[in-house]
Structures are given as structure tokens and as C-alpha cells.
């Protein structure tokens, strides 16, 4: 009973902290563009309609803008209006893809990004940790060969790996399609043909993220595991005659903990890299949407994309921390006090 209470407190604190961070991130998302010199809102509105020829469209966008952002009100009132709309999922109308709403564009791309990045980062993380632990344990030739390779691979930027895989497997070997999330001649539905097309388009982006993640994680895990293998408890366990396999299990579990924290802290960076890799494959996720938005000076879309990325990273982080609470014996012990 006491145990449960401790958990509740731990989770409560974590969730509260993340809520505060989320609020802060939302404020930054709103304030940063408006802190810049000049009148960004007006110039953005002007820039947004500069390419349009349809006068009713221009008027609609300008009106929409004035209404949505309350351009003439003080900043705090503007924030109120903006936040109220954002909570309802209303981020305005896209400048670049008028008359689609930003919410519509975002909701059609979030799924692609989630379905691509979540499994890819997880698979890469698990494979990387296994390889790193094996490299630390076996040492010798395996370690000597694997480590420099991973060290180099982990330094190739995600988009670089993406473009290499694209060239080799997409263009030269023609094993997989080179761009998009599904065949350009298909309409999304649940048919077998469509699913097969999605799966074959999924391969290259997926593996490029996995490969990058494996490299970095393997190196981290290897040094963690070496560190743990030299720890006193390992020597003591050997002295007691405990089986090697069991010791490796202990070492792996202990070395894993910092790796989980590491995952939480580098998730943002990883996702940033993976988002850019999407662009290489014109994958219909947030990354490609963001690039289109930047090219089209589509301010509402950019701000919604960055907000979406922040929310995703924060949620993933919160999730990792909550799991950490369950598996780290020290956190558990602290809760029982």
C-alpha cells in the first residue's frame, strides 16, 4: 500500500513537471517568433499572400489572420486567443496549401511520422544495446571490428544514411521505391495492394533510422558494460562462483539504466535527425510537411509542426521516465521510504 503511494507521488511529480515544461514550450513556440524586431505578424501575413492571385483567397487569409491572432491586441491577449484556438485543435488555415486547414495537414502527417520513428528508434535502440553488450563481453576480434564500424556509422548524419540507402537500394539495385509513403498511383485504403505498397516504401526510411540509432547506442552500451564488468560486485560474484550467464544478466541490467536515461535525453535530437531523413524520401510525415511549410513561408503550419514535434518528444520522454520508475531499484527503494 505504502509502495503504491510512493509510485503515485513519483508519477504525480513527473507528470506535473512535464505539464509545466509543456506550458513553457508552448509559450516559447508563441513568443519566440514575436520577439523578433519589426512586425513579424504583418510581414508574415503579407508574405503569405504575396504568391496568391485569387483576391477572395487573399482577403480570407488576411481576415482569418487578423481574427486568429488578434493582431492589434496586446501580446498576452493574443496568446489567450491563440491558446484557446490551439486547444480546440484550430491552428488556422495553411497559407501554402490554401484552403486546407493546418489541423487537417498535421493530422494526416503525424501518423506517418509516428509509425516510422517510434518502431525505428526502438528497434535501433534494442539492437544497439544488445550489440554493445555483446561487444563488451566478447571483446577480441568482434569488438575490434564492430566498434570502429559503428563509431563511423554513428557519425553519418541520419539524412546522409538515408541518401546512401536511397542510392544503393532504391536507385542502383531497385529493390525498394525511392520516394513517398505509398505508390503515387494508389489511393489510401485497406486493400492488400495498398498495404504492400506502404510496407515496401517503409523499408528504406526505417532502416536508415535504425542503422544510425544502432551505432550510437552500441558505443554507449559498450562503454557502460565495460565499466560495469570491472565493478566490485562482478568480481565478488565471480569469486562466489556464480555462473557467467547470470553475471552477464546483472551487468546488462545495470548498464541498461543509464542507457534508458540516455535515450530520454537524446530523443529530441534523434527525432530531429529522423525528421530531416524523411525529406530525403519525401516521406509524407511531419519532416516533409515542415520543409514544405518553410519553403512556402507558411507560418501557421511551421508553428503547428514545431508544437507537434515538441508534444511528441515530451510524451515519449515522459513515457521513458515512467518506465524508468518501474525498473530502477533505487527509485523503487526511494518510494518505499
Amino acid at each position: 500500500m505504502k509502495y503504491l503511494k510512493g509510485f503515485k507521488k513519483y508519477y504525480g511529480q513527473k507528470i506535473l513537471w512535464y505539464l509545466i515544461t509543456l506550458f513553457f514550450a508552448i509559450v516559447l513556440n508563441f513568443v519566440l517568433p514575436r520577439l523578433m524586431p519589426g512586425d513579424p505578424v504583418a510581414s508574415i501575413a503579407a508574405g503569405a499572400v504575396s504568391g496568391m492571385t485569387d483576391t477572395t483567397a487573399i482577403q480570407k487569409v488576411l481576415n482569418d489572420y487578423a481574427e486568429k491572432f488578434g493582431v492589434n491586441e496586446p501580446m498576452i491577449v493574443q496568446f489567450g486567443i491563440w491558446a484557446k484556438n490551439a486547444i480546440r485543435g484550430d491552428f488556422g488555415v495553411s497559407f501554402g496549401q490554401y484552403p486546407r486547414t493546418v489541423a487537417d495537414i498535421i493530422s494526416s502527417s503525424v501518423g506517418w511520422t509516428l509509425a516510422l520513428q517510434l518502431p525505428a528508434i526502438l528497434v535501433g535502440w534494442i539492437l544497439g544495446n544488445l550489440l554493445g553488450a555483446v561487444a563488451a563481453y566478447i571483446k577480441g576480434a568482434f569488438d575490434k571490428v564492430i566498434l570502429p564500424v559503428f563509431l563511423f556509422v554513428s557519425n553519418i548524419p541520419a539524412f546522409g544514411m538515408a541518401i546512401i540507402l536511397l542510392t544503393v537500394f532504391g536507385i542502383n539495385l531497385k529493390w525498394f521505391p525511392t520516394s513517398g509513403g505509398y505508390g503515387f498511383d494508389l489511393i489510401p485504403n485497406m486493400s492488400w495492394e495498398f498495404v504492400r505498397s506502404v510496407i515496401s516504401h517503409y523499408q528504406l526510411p526505417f532502416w536508415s533510422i535504425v542503422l544510425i540509432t544502432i551505432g550510437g547506442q552500441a558505443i554507449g552500451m559498450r562503454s557502460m558494460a565495460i565499466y560495469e564488468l570491472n565493478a566490485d560486485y562482478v568480481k565478488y560474484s565471480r569469486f562466489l562462483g556464480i555462473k557467467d550467464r547470470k553475471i552477464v544478466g546483472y551487468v546488462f541490467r545495470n548498464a541498461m539504466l543509464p542507457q534508458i536515461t540516455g535515450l530520454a535525453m537524446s530523443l529530441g535530437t534523434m527525432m530531429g535527425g529522423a525528421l530531416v531523413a524523411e525529406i530525403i524520401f519525401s516521406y509524407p510525415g511531419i519532416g516533409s510537411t515542415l520543409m514544405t511549410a518553410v519553403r512556402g513561408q507558411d507560418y501557421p503550419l511551421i508553428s503547428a509542426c514545431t508544437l507537434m514535434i515538441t508534444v511528441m518528444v515530451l510524451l515519449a520522454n515522459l513515457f521513458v521516465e515512467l518506465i524508468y520508475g518501474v525498473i530502477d531499484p533505487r527509485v523503487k527503494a526511494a518510494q518505499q521510504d
Partner: protein
Amino acid sequence: MKNTIRQVFHSPKFVIGFIIFAALLLTTIIYPIVVATDPLEMVGNGNFFKPGTYVSVKDAVEGSKYTLNVDVQSASLGSKISAEDKEAMKEWLVKFGGVAEADIDIEDAEGLIGLWEANYSENAEQKGLTSSKKKYYVRLNKNIDGILLNNDVIIAQENSETGELEQSASIGSQEFVNTKDVANRRTFILGTDNFGRDVLTELVHATKTSLRVGLIAGVIATLIGLFLGLISGYVGGVVDDLIMFITNMFTVIPSFVLLILISYSVGQNARGVNLVGIIIGITSWTWTTRSVRSQVISLRNRDHVNLSKLSGHSMMRIVLTDILPYLASYVVMAFILQISSGILAEAQLSMLGLGPSTSNAATLGLMMNWATLYAAPLNGSWWAYFPVVITIALIAFSLNLMNTGLDQVFNPQLRD
């Protein structure tokens, strides 16, 4: 100090990383001295010219000729008849020429042409062939005949009075020019990019600019991180809580997002190379702050620090003389990593179209951005992006190797 440096240079990892990095850096310094052309000069009038040496056709025609007794025909056949053409020829021969499939070797261009010449006839009965396909074979046949005929190429000039063409020279197929004799030639080791610029020269200058971005970002991030980490760790209490609260927040809020927001807000015109470096610097200090803080906390109750406190030294002096020297190795390591991540951040920003907006310098990220915008991978123009990816990877690899080497020297537990 001297001993430490000697120790560092005994670490093979550090030395390898250092050599790669120094080689890259030296290239960016020496290359521009040797090749003084403007890196952004649009030499090629068109997209993505292949790597190689380009010689002026006119100079080649007018230059002195050498007759070489070599077989020129098979090489021309090989380059002028594509693999698809060969496949089509084989298909025709099997279907209508009465040649057994086993007798045809598609790799042997001369043998295939021989069979073709012996068996192909325009008027043969070709059942089941569309007329466009029939015409394709006629064209292909003419093409092959042209190569086989081996006629001299006649150079003619227009007579300015009569307007008639007069033969001025004829060039046989065995005639060669020495490329050294041709005055007008340019070598593009890595071809040209989508704007017709020499990729190698551009790459070298871009590496230099990207290193500058990384350096600016690294210096700023390290300074902010060091400053906040020192205060937070040494002062402790409410100040520590506040700084760590902010630091933890910025660790979780992806710096990638802040980068995008700030870069976009600054505006296209103001975003120069230095400013991009500064923006990257002010969004990536959190790691340094955390590690400096934890180091300072472990240092601040050491005897020599307490002694300084008892002696009444000012906080400034204690931090500078009693704490900072112990942090030096950490700070250098963090700085190295910051440079590497700064270069990567610039590249990612540029891929999104938020990189430095400049008409007088290229960066590695901008080169990647241009290459992808102009679909270099789909054109097969590997030279426009592959060297860039390798350069970014090499810079990051060398810096990380140096970092790992330093880590092993300063944390003996990690040595293997």
C-alpha cells in the same frame, strides 16, 4: 600540462581523429591557395556534369593530331549502344532472325553486331511487332551501320563571300589529340553541381564555412554551459534549483524545434553564416551545463577549495584557480562534441531550408539541400551529395574519436 599532452597523443584514437581533422582543416587552408577560382562561379552551363576532364572541342579539332593504331570501333560500339538496345537486338534475333538463344552473348558487343549484320533485314517478316517497334529497329540498324561505316568527319567552314561551305579538314577515326596540347581544358574531379559549379572547390570552401559555424556554435554553447554550470554547482541552493529547472526544461524541449523557430523568426535576409552559428550555440548548451555542474559539485568540498575559502579568497578567484583547472579536460571534451553537433545542426537546418541565406558562401548543409532539391540522387549524380555526406561524417568521426581518446586518458576506467 606537458605530460598531459604527451599522454593524450599516446592515445591511438585521439591521434587518428586528430590526423583526420588536421588533414581536413589543412585542405581547407591550402586548397584555396592552389586553386584560386571562385567557389561559386557557375562554370558549367547546365546541371550536374560528370566528373572528369573537359577539353574544348574546337581546340581539339584544330590541334595537332596523332594517328594511333588502335581499335576504336569496339569502344565506340560499347558506349553508343545501350544495354537496352542490346537486349532488343537479342530479342529480334531470337524471334525473327532464326538465331538460337544460346549462340548470343550479350556481353560480346562485336559478336552481337556481327550476328545482327548477318541476320537483320528491314523487310523480314516481323509478326506481332508494332510499327513503332519496327521503326525502332530500323533506327537502331542505321545507328549501327553509321558506327561500322567509320567515315571521316568533315570539318567545313562557311565562305564569307559566297556563303558556301568549304571543307577545311577531315578527321579520321584513328586520329587522336593529346589532352595536354589542348589549351582550354578544365578538370572537375567531382563534376559540377546543379548550378554548374565545380563541386570539389565548392566542397572545400563549404567545409571551411561549416567548420566556422561549428566553431562559433561550440564556443558559445561551451561558454554558456560553463558559466551556468559553474554558478549552479558552486553557489547551489535556490540559484542551483532555478538553473537546473531551466536546464532540464531545455534538455527535454527539443533544441531542433527552438532552432527552427528562432531561425525562421530571424528572417531569410538576416540569416548569415555567423548568425546561424550563434543561434545553434544558444540552443545547445544544456549538456555542458549538466556535466560541468556535476563536476563542480564533486569539487567544491575538496580540501584545497575549503582552504581557499578559509583564506578569504573571493569566489571569483576560487572558481578560476581552484575549480576551473580541474574542469579543463571536461570542457575541452564538451567543446569538441559541440563543434561536431553544431556542424550537424547547420546541415539539418539547411536541409529544411532554414540554413544560412547567403550568395557568397556555401556550407555543407546548403550543398546537401541543393543536391536534394535538384533530385541529384534520382539523376544518378552521386558526386553532388556523396562527398558532402562523407565530409560531414569524417568531421564528426574525427572529432568524436578525439573525444573518446581524451575520455580514455582522463577516465582510466574506460581504458581497455
